[in-house]
Each structure stands twice: as structure tokens, then as C-alpha cells.
């Protein structure tokens, strides 16, 4: 990062924090929007008594498992949908229907079926991430240029090699975009699920804070979502940059 960029980043963060700080106690009551100082105090307290780790751990575990499951299902079904006409005709209509139902809307049903246990949360997160992965994967697989496949056949690739040698590498940029979007959706899914039915987790922390009138806790929840979302996204990008760079180069 060069000096100019670093300066702009600092200004941007300072202004954001400044606006928050000055509006707390003036524009908004402190009991609704607490100041950065009291949020920082609360954060320290929750780290000290390890409460924070319990919530964070619960949410992250749900995200990791739910996301992983969603990605596996999304990639497998997405590849089938993108590559096989019959699969597309059979699978796509109900999925096109389902993609309009946001994960949050399914929570009441999921709670009635699975109760407030972990399975329901994995389901919500897998659903949220799986749909994103699936549609992007299918689009990527289906958009492989026909002439690239034909070029490979001319050069001696066998029909059964085409998927691994041509279709998959051509689809990687789409698949990775889907995986990255899905990561964001997993965060949304976990919070929604925890807000409605949980006794632990960041979503629960946020929801509960209004009941026990602890606004600083709510903001600690926001802070966790914002920073962990950012960290995982950056990690994701760095990993792709290291491992998958050749597939992400401009296609023009």
C-alpha cells in the first residue's frame, strides 16, 4: 500500500469514527447509539470474561460447517446443471423458484422442523451459500467457449478429459466469484438464524442486547460482524491470489 492510499484509508476511518462519536449523545441518545469508548470498554470486558469467544465461536463454527456444506453441494449440483442438459431442465425450474425465497423467510419453517438446534442453522447457512455457488458455477460451466473445447479436441484431448482440462478451468472465475459471494451470505444467514432461534452466537448477542438494554453489546456484535466479514473476505482474496491467480487473469 502506498503512502497516499494509506493516508486516504486513515482519513476514511477517522471520519467514520468521528461521525459515530459526535452523533452519539447528541443526534442519538447514548442509550441507543453508545460512543466508541463505551463500546471499546464493553469489548474489553467481554474479552476478559470470555463471553465474546463463546458467541464468536458458536457463530464461526456454524458458518464454517454450513458454508462448506453449501459450497460442496453448490459446486456439484451447479456443475451438473451447467454441463448436462437433462439435469438443467430438471433442476433449474425449482431452483429459480427457490432463489426468490430469502433464507430469513425459511427460518420459521426450519425452527418448526429442526427446533432451535444446530442442524437448522447449518441448513439456513448452506441454503444461503449453496444457492449463490450453484448459480455461479452453472453459469461458468455453461459459458465455456465452444471453440475452446473444439481446439482441445483437435489437439488430442479425449472427450473425457475435456471437463477437467477445459471446462473447469474456464469456469473457475465464475465459481470463485460464487464462493466469495456465498461467504458474505453465510454471515447474513447465521445472524438471521441466531436472531430468531439461539442461545449463543453474534446474532443472539445483538438480539438479546435490546431485551437487557445493553446497547454496547449490540455494537460489539456489529464490530465482530464487520471485522470478521472483512477478515475472511481478505483471506479469501489472498488465497485465491496465491493459488488460483492464473485462472483469474483478465480474459480479454
Amino acid at each position, binding site marked *: 500500500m502506498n503512502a497516499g492510499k494509506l493516508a486516504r484509508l486513515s482519513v476514511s476511518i477517522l471520519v467514520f469514527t468521528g461521525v459515530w462519536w459526535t452523533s452519539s449523545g447528541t443526534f442519538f441518545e447514548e442509550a441507543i447509539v453508545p460512543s466508541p469508548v463505551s463500546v471499546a470498554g464493553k469489548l474489553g470486558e467481554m474479552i476478559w470474561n470470555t463471553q465474546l469467544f463463546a458467541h464468536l465461536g458458536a457463530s464461526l463454527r456454524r458458518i464454517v460447517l454450513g458454508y462448506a456444506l453449501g459450497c460442496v453441494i453448490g459446486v456439484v449440483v451447479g456443475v451438473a446443471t451447467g454441463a448436462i442438459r437433462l439435469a438443467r431442465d430438471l433442476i433449474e425450474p425449482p431452483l429459480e423458484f427457490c432463489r426468490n425465497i430469502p433464507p430469513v423467510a425459511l427460518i420459521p419453517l426450519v425452527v418448526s422442523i429442526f427446533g432451535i438446534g444446530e442442524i437448522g442453522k447449518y441448513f439456513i447457512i448452506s441454503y444461503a451459500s449453496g444457492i449463490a455457488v450453484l448459480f455461479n458455477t452453472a453459469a461458468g460451466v455453461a459459458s465455456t*467457449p465452444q*471453440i*475452446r473445447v*473444439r*481446439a*482441445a*479436441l*483437435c*489437439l*488430442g*484431448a*479425449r472427450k473425457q*478429459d475435456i471437463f477437467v482440462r*477445459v471446462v473447469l*478451468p474456464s469456469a*473457475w472465475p465464475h465459481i470463485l466469484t460464487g464462493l466469495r459471494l456465498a461467504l458474505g451470505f453465510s454471515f447474513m444467514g447465521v445472524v438471521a438464524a441466531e436472531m430468531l432461534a439461539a442461545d449463543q452466537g453474534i446474532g443472539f448477542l445483538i438480539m438479546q442486547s435490546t431485551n437487557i438494554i445493553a446497547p454496547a453489546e449490540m455494537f460489539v456484535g456489529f464490530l465482530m460482524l464487520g471485522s470478521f466479514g472483512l477478515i475472511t473476505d481478505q483471506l479469501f482474496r489472498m488465497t485465491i491470489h496465491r493459488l488460483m491467480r*492464473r*485462472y483469474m*487473469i*483478465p*480474459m*480479454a
Partner: protein
Amino acid sequence: MSWRVLRLEGVGKDFTRADGGVAEVLRDVTLTVERGAFFTLLGPSGCGKSTLLNIVAGFEGATTGGASLDDRPVAGPGTDRTVIFQDVSNALFPWMNARENVEFGPKMARLGAVERNERAEKYLRLVGLDADGGKFPFELSGGMKQRIQIARALANDPDILLMDEPFAALDAITKKHLQVEFRKIWSETGKTIFYITHDIFEALLLSTHLAVMTAGPKAGIKEVFQLDLEEPRSPSNPDFAAMYSRVETLIDEEVQRMRAR
């Protein structure tokens, strides 16, 4: 595999259109391409040149008749025939650098790493890109990409190169260079070339044989020429100029006929 002639015999091709109707594209196309020839197909846009090339490549089956090398019918794509596509960005593998692209065929043929590398170097040198093997397609200009595609095809040592307007998307100067270079590559490697172009000038500059197609639907072959033009070929040579206007007239006739319908 040794063969003497590429034959197209009574080739007809119908497509089912999206609206369910039938597009009758080719009718009774019969051509003979001698081994080692530079055979060029000219014709009005949409008459079915690419369709014919796809049939020779084995990408599409003919509705009637078919292509064969001597008596062996073409049944699908094969390493004896390699296509050079105009849309080079999609034809190359963008996740492979130039050398890896060129090595793809040898790799499919299960050659060892050393030999693969030698081949890649040899053909990169032939197209003048020996210093650019490590670059990815997006880092190369259109002309350079097309050279890579040519090197990739040659590294596989096919008998026939099938080229569908390979230089049409390039700027005039790059195109001119590549035409000259490609003619040299052809005479050095002795490959048989089946070439499509819209450019009469290019056709006369490069080819040993030239076929003009009639306008579609139900397109066929209007006339075939063997070109024994004075070398070095140049538009200022009288035989070149005469041939040019003769071919131009033939194509104009077909375009008029197409418009009249």
C-alpha cells in the same frame, strides 16, 4: 499416416433452425484437396464456408456425403487436422502461458517434459515468439496471440491446418506481416492448408488453389482455380491483377444473386 487427397464428396448440410424450420445450407459440395496444397475457400458471407470447415474438422456431421482422407472418412475431430480459429482469445487457454499453450498437444500425446519443451521452443521460435513463452495470452497483442495459436497447432504436427479467417480480426499492418510469414511457414513445413477468407487479395497472395462458392441457401462450389501466379506474387503483376478482377466478378455475381432473393 500417409494420405494423398482430402476429398469432399456430395456434401450437403441442413440445420434445424431455432423456429423448427430447416436451413438448407450446403448442397452437393465436391472438392479435392491435394496433399501439400494451400486451398482457399472464398464466398459470400453466410454461404456456409465455416460449416464446410467444421465438417472437415469433424465438429459437425454432414447431412449427405462427407469428407475423407483418401478412403478414410472423417468421423470426428482428430490430431491429423487442427483448426486455427479467428476468435483467438477464446481459442487459447487463458490460464496457460504461451509455452504451456503450445505444449498442450504434445502433453495430450503423452510426450515427456523434455521433448515437450523442445517442441514448444522450436515452434515459438518459428513464429518469432521465443522470448515470450512465459507471457499469458492477455499480455499478448492480437497478432501475437494468433502466432501462438499457429505454433500450438504446428507443435502437434497435424497433416492439415484448417483456418477460418485467421487474420480477419487483425489490423492491416499486422495482417500483412502474418500473411507473409505464414506463407513462409507453409512452404517450410509442407502442411496442407484449408483456408477461409473474405479477402481476395489474401487468397491470391497465399493460395495454390482457390474455390469460389455460390450464395446460400443450398450453396455449392461455383468455380475452382489452380493459381500458377508469377512469384513473388504482387498485385502489380498483370496475372495477379487479372485473377483478382476475375474472382471479384464471380463473388459480385453471387452477392447480387443473394440480394435479388
